């Protein structure tokens, strides 16, 4: 009796989260829940039936994608605070969700045959990919320093394990462990930065920080600036910008191709979402204080990435350095900090996702042996043996190099144009010059693909025949690069409305 009385008294005091907030995070929660269910399912599914886990994961991702698209239509231009500004429900986050889900869908669609051939078809692969995807999606909509940190850790922990997924292979183990040590170090630096930002502004929620930063411009605290720099270093590590890029080539090379393809694309998208939310919106009032540092990192990334990529002889390493250079181009968009630049970066992210994935997915379709057929030598003559695969890779490489009318050209075009608009002509010129260098190493790979094969007659083919379903998926991705490149106003329009949603609550200058 007394117990019932106490319960009745306590019930109104228990604050349940309102249903509305859960609904706003539905895409993220579907993938997060899918991760847990996949982990449980994995214990029941016999090894020969693991392809069904892939089918199930695809279903989870498609459901999340469907909700994301319908959310895009219903949310309109609003920006809705979820769980007291922990997350923001807006078109910007949904745009990022779309890119990440696209990368995850592609990877999981290609994985079963690849993992089977590499003899690493373990069920954890799917649950870990879903966990990383969920972390990335949360990062895309995080609007509090705490949630940014937690999401980064969720995605990183899953990726550390995935990089070391080839269990018997020393390279893969080494890749996972290096990534883990460097990632932990970067997280600690990021966290220190967040602690200082929190301490000096008194808030962990970005909108509140934005208000404090905007209201108190006269006396800029050196500790706050230190914090901002440390946060940028931490995020710069995740996008592998130049002085913090050391881990990238080794991790990309050692990790299995499926993991390389996924993390090279999706991690960069998610981390750039956080950089745009924090630097291009919240910290714009302090723009003059961090502009030089970001420009310097951008210039350095373009230089180091492009120059070192020239002398690579392994396509994974080449794409790692090319990814460093691409991060540099995208950082131009952060450094010029105009509202047009944000849309440019979003288009660039879409182009980078499709093109980088197209190259690595092409190799994934035919990869044989411990090194994933990723050295240039083992790709020689692929164009004659598997013309369809080579053609898709060539188109993606041309898009990365920035040939019009492919999507990669438009990404560069919008970012450089926004730099010129904002009077940062030197940055734009530097970008154009370094992308001229990049054409050499992209074209070199295309030449290798179509050079005559050296193998003797009768020797076993150095490649597997591509699985038909996988080839169709890669074909769709590459077709999107071409079609969206021709109809680029569509992408730009979507990027613009994502950009507008980002600026609703915190007006940019």
């Amino acid at each position: 009796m007394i117990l019932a009385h106490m319960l009745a008294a306590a019930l109104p005091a228990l604050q349940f989260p309102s249903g509305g907030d859960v609904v706003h995070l539905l895409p993220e929660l579907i993938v997060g829940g899918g991760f847990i269910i996949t982990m449980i399912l994995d214990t029941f599914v016999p090894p020969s039936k693991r392809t069904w886990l892939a089918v199930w994961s695809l279903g989870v991702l498609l459901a999340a994608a469907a909700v994301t698209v319908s959310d895009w239509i219903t949310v309109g231009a609003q920006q809705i605070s979820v769980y007291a500004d922990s997350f923001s429900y807006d078109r910007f986050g949904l745009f990022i969700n779309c890119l990440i889900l696209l990368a995850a869908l592609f990877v999981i669609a290609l994985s079963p045959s690849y993992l089977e051939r590499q003899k690493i078809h373990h069920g954890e692969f799917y649950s870990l990919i879903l966990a990383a995807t969920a972390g990335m999606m949360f990062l895309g909509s995080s609007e509090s320093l705490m949630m940014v940190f937690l999401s980064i850790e969720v995605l990183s922990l899953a990726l550390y394990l995935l990089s070391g997924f080839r269990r018997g292979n020393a390279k893969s183990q080494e890749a996972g462990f290096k990534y883990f040590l460097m990632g932990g170090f970067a997280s600690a630096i990021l966290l220190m930065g967040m602690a200082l930002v929190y301490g000096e502004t008194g808030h962990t929620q970005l909108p509140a920080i934005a208000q404090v930063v905007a209201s108190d411009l006269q006396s800029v605290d050196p500790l706050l600036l230190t914090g901002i720099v440390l946060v940028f270093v931490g995020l710069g590590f995740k996008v592998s910008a130049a002085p913090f890029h050391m881990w990238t080539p080794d991790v990309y090379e050692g990790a299995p191709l499926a993991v390389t393809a996924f993390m090279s694309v999706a991690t960069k998208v998610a981390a750039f979402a956080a950089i745009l939310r924090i630097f291009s919106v919240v910290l714009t009032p302090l723009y003059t204080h961090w502009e030089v540092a970001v420009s310097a990192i951008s210039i350095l990334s373009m230089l180091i990435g492009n120059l070192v990529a020239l002398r690579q002889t392994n396509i994974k390493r080449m794409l790692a350095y090319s990814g460093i250079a691409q991060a540099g181009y995208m950082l131009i968009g952060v450094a010029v900090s105009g509202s047009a630049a944000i849309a440019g970066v979003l288009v660039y992210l879409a182009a980078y996702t499709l093109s980088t994935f197209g190259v690595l997915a092409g190799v994934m379709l035919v990869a044989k042996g411990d090194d994933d057929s990723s050295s240039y030598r083992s790709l020689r003559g692929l164009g004659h043996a598997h013309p369809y695969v080579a053609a898709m890779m060539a188109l993606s490489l041309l898009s990365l190099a920035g040939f019009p009318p492919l999507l990669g050209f438009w990404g560069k075009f919008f970012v450089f144009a926004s730099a010129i608009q904002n009077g940062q002509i030197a940055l734009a010129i530097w970008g154009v010059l370094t992308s001229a260098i990049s054409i050499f190493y992209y074209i070199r790979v295309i030449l290798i693909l179509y050079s005559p094969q050296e193998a003797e007659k009768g020797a076993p083919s150095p490649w597997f025949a591509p699985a038909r379903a996988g080839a169709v998926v890669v074909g769709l991705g590459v077709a999107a690069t071409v079609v969206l490149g021709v109809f680029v106003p569509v992408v730009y329009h979507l990027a613009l409305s994502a950009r507008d949603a980002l600026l609703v609550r915190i007006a940019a200058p």
Partner: protein
Amino acid sequence: MSTGDFQFLLFLGTLLFMIGATGVLIRRNPLVIFMSVELMLNSVNLILVAYGRALNSLAGQIFAFMVIVVAAAEVVVGLAMVTRIFRAEHTLDVDRLDEMKD
């Protein structure tokens, strides 16, 4: 808490963070590097809690709790990887882990 106490805590946290960062950069044993990373995370905890107290806001404490949880998860992943590397290579020296080079 007086201003002096707060400044001392901030100083102590920064010092521990620096010691951790130095450890990561100069030590060669992965386990020690790993401990240094943990030291860095926990020094940030100290700073977060000190700021939370000084600002009279709970966010610092909550943040510190989250960091503790994350650090625990990192230990799980890290130790699993260390044991696997040791089984494969029978060495724990990051300078010997150089399968991949430019």
